């Protein structure tokens, strides 16, 4: 891949424009979040928004340098950069300062550093470097596994901090792997795992298991277009489940309903095994395996969550998912920020008019909880309007690839 001499021509101008637009919007919202009348100049350097301006300028200059530097530089040094940043991630776990319950910052006398932010950049470079040297080989496990390791290593380290936000950012790099040829089964499995994880915590497990089973039957019917298979399968399953239920109800008296579904499915599978094998019904087998996998996953997540997790962490997740509420304690931030966003209504309270923000009911409102300011002051209409350029951003990014 020969580097073009004229950088300007090869630039993806739309992406840069969208990027700059988001940056400016972010800047204005920081201004709104920490706005006070005594320092109303947006370039006031003593305030967050003034500093943000300096960062924006610095970032643009850095960006220009990054563009000018020959891309072979990155490929050459990618492993070095990745390696040193991973070292930093390990070190921050050992020597970092604990702030708000997370060990993610190095604090020095005159500056502080969050290595996970740099690690995101380093991981992207390392992944790009790795994939660049063995293009289109992601269909092979021998390529997929190292590529996954590049992503999972920093994801694990940040999860230990714990900084789930960064973990999710790292995990989102799997989208790239999928885009470049990763097996859809792996991708769907991963996606399913994430979705099921949250559904397990929110929905009663019996309904969830039953729901997954019904969906699986429907999928079989859609995939094979043979209602006989779907019907016969459901029939066998229901009979199995009913027998199990009766046995449990009168004799064992200790099986949960969702466990009955799982066992009934396993028995049904054995009964169907020869049929599937003889007819080479791969689609049915795949669906069946996903179904069994999902149910096992659901039951183990439930067990882990209720039996293995310490109480306070369980509380924190419960509050995050809205299962429990504790508006004065752990849930204060979440509660106040939902109040902020919720009070914005359709049109919002107007720029610089958000009372929740202005009177500092929301913590960290210029960084982690910046969206409260946006939601409160702009309302649902304008948030939707302005956020719609994020998917556009993603679309154009792929086009330029």
């Amino acid at each position, binding site marked *: 891949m020969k580097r073009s001499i004229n950088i300007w021509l090869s630039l993806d101008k739309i992406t840069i424009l969208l990027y700059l637009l988001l940056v400016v919007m972010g800047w204005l919202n920081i201004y709104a979040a920490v706005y006070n009348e005594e320092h109303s100049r947006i370039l006031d350097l003593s305030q967050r928004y003034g500093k943000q301006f300096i960062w924006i300028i610095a970032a643009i200059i850095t960006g220009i340098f990054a563009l000018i530097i020959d891309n072979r530089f990155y490929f050459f040094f990618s492993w070095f950069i990745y390696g040193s940043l991973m070292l930093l991630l390990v070190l921050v776990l050992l020597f970092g300062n604990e702030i708000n319950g997370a060990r993610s910052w190095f604090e020095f006398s005159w500056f502080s550093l969050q290595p996970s932010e740099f690690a995101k950049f380093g991981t992207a470079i390392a992944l790009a470097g790795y994939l660049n040297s063995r293009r289109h080989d992601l269909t092979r496990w021998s390529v997929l596994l190292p590529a996954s390791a590049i992503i999972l290593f920093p994801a694990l380290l940040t999860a230990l901090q714990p900084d789930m936000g960064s973990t999710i950012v790292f995990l989102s790099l799997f989208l790239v792997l999928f885009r470049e040829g990763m097996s859809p089964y792996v991708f769907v499995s991963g996606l399913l795992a994430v979705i099921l994880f949250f559904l397990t915590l929110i929905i009663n497990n019996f309904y969830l298991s039953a729901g997954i089973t019904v969906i699986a039957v429907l999928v079989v019917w859609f995939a094979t277009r043979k209602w006989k298979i779907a019907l016969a399968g459901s029939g066998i399953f229901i009979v199995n489940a009913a027998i199990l239920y009766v046995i449990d109800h009168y004799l064992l008296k200790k099986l949960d309903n969702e466990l009955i579904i799982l066992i009934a499915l396993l028995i049904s599978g054995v009964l169907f095994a020869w049929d599937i094998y003889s007819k080479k019904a791969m689609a049915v087998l795949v669906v069946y395996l996903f179904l069994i996998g999902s149910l096992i996953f659901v039951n183990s997540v439930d067990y882990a969550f209720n039996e293995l997790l310490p109480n306070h962490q369980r509380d924190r997740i419960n509050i995050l998912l809205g299962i429990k509420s504790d508006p004065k304690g752990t849930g204060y931030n979440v509660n106040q920020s939902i109040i902020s966003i919720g009070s914005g209504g359709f049109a919002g309270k107007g720029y610089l008019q958000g009372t929740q923000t202005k009177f500092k009911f929301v913590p960290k409102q210029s960084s982690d909880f910046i969206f409260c300011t946006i*939601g409160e002051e702009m309302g649902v209409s304008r948030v939707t309007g302005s956020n719609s350029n994020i998917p556009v951003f993603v679309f154009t990014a792929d086009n330029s690839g």
Partner: protein
Amino acid sequence: MKDPFINRKYIIMALMLVACLVLIVRLFVIQIVKDTYRLSADNNVLRYVTQYPARGLIFDRSGELIVSNMAAYDIMVIPAQTSGIDTAEFCSLLGITTDMFKRQMRSAVNYSRRAPSVFLKQISDETYARLQEKMFLYTGFYVQPRTLRKYTRPVAAHILGYVSEVDESLIRKNPYYKPGDYIGKSGIEEAYEKEIRGRKGVKIYMVDVFSRIKGSYAEGAMDTVAVQGSDIVSSIDLDLQEYGELLMKNKRGSIVAIEPGTGEVLSLVSAPGYDPGLLVGRVRSENFATLQSDTAILPLFNRALMASYPPGSTFKPINGLIGLQEGVISEDTKFGCDFGYLFVGCHGHASPLDLAGAVANSCNSYFCQTYRRVLENRKYGSVSEAYIEWKRYLNEFGFGSKLGTDFVNELAGFVPSTSYYDRYHGKNKWKALTVISMAIGQGEIGTTPLQMANMTAAIANRGYFYTPHIVRGIGKENVIDPRFTVKHTIDIDSANFEKIIVGMEGAVNGAPGGTAGIARIRDIIVCGKTGTAQNPHGKDHSVFIAFAPKDNPRIAIAVYVENAGFGSTYAAPVASLMIEKYLRDTISNKVMEKRILDLNLEDNIIESETQH
């Protein structure tokens, strides 16, 4: 170069779209579908600060200030907003213990975490000044200015009433009042609470997370202005009131003085009384408990309105009037008296006497015979019928029911109905002689000093009265309740009143055997009637009613001195001094004044109370 996975970009796009959609739907739900969040945000940020109006001032009839206001500051707390407070420093600023702090916080939390409660009542000006600078440190606390009552003289407590904090049951009944609010209790403060309290206003402020005020909400468009309470002009004469309380010192009893022409109460004394200043501020509840627990002298008890006595001989003019009106006697009718009539005794005096002489001499025999004639009048079929007619006259004078004054706890008194006697003696089984003691104001009948003063005013007016009242004007328009301008006319000819008044004049002004010569005032014709209310617990109560001058009377008065014996002994001099004080503002008989001022009847009372 061909990309075999080009279609996967659409899957990724779709995922992005779904994620965005989920966010937008969630946003839609919390921003538009649910309005609880908007309300929470308002509750977070808006603080409703009640603007307390000052209570109206109270003046006496000559425009002299009796009751005014002084500022006080309550510390309020909103428990939900308190956090990170340096309790030790806060307590030392306020001069309270940390135990007290905890106690007050607990009771505030018990009331409500989100609504303000009173944390500490009525802190001093100095404490307030010290605290003001540091108030911002104590989030969730703020200062609520209030007004307290201030009295120019330590008198008229029973008339004015007092102001106290509302209790929980009242808050439930009347949502206007909030915890920590004040309300008038008894007297003018209670009767005119609606007018005198004004109307609370509310200022809506925006506060930040530290509950610091950040400006007014919507530029004050939603605020309501507090309306000041109306000023009240009372009908009392403050000098007369003070003099009356002075005269009644170390005695028990009451004085009620009324301006006959208007029904305005000039003075209303109930002894023993208390200093109204005792029931103000932080000391209020403690002092109130002390006053209330003083069961020996009952300082909070307003005898003028709430004590029911048999009227005694002061009732004789009424029976005379009814006899005249019913035509069973005339002014010339004479009855003989040989130390009494049947079983009712009498004192020694000339005999026989005509009506005026009988009033002046307070002859029991005369009025027993008159009363018998009234009840045995052939005009009515039976004693019962005649009694009903007699009772009707009494009701016209205001006996047996509440007068409808602007005093809040007035007693109705008691005039027995025929059924009362029917119950005791059987229907038509009782005769005039059965109830003969009513002729001289003894027996079952019960009247209050206020009712007796009103009766005296009606006699002074020769046949009518206005409902007694203590307030002659409210607010700038100086209006009063229309019920006080209604003339109550008594169904007895004014000529008959003149005949009785001659007797009352004689009683004071030198008729042979007159019982109340002691009440005489040079150059003022005082018309009076002595009385002795029987007291089963000890020495009888001394009673005197009088009005003056005889023509165009300006004051009608009833005086009760408990456990003092005959009416002429103490009640008559007190009434006389009051009349002279009011009409002339000087006292000519200094000797009598000194005798009354030095008189201490408390020893009598203690003696008599140990007897029974």
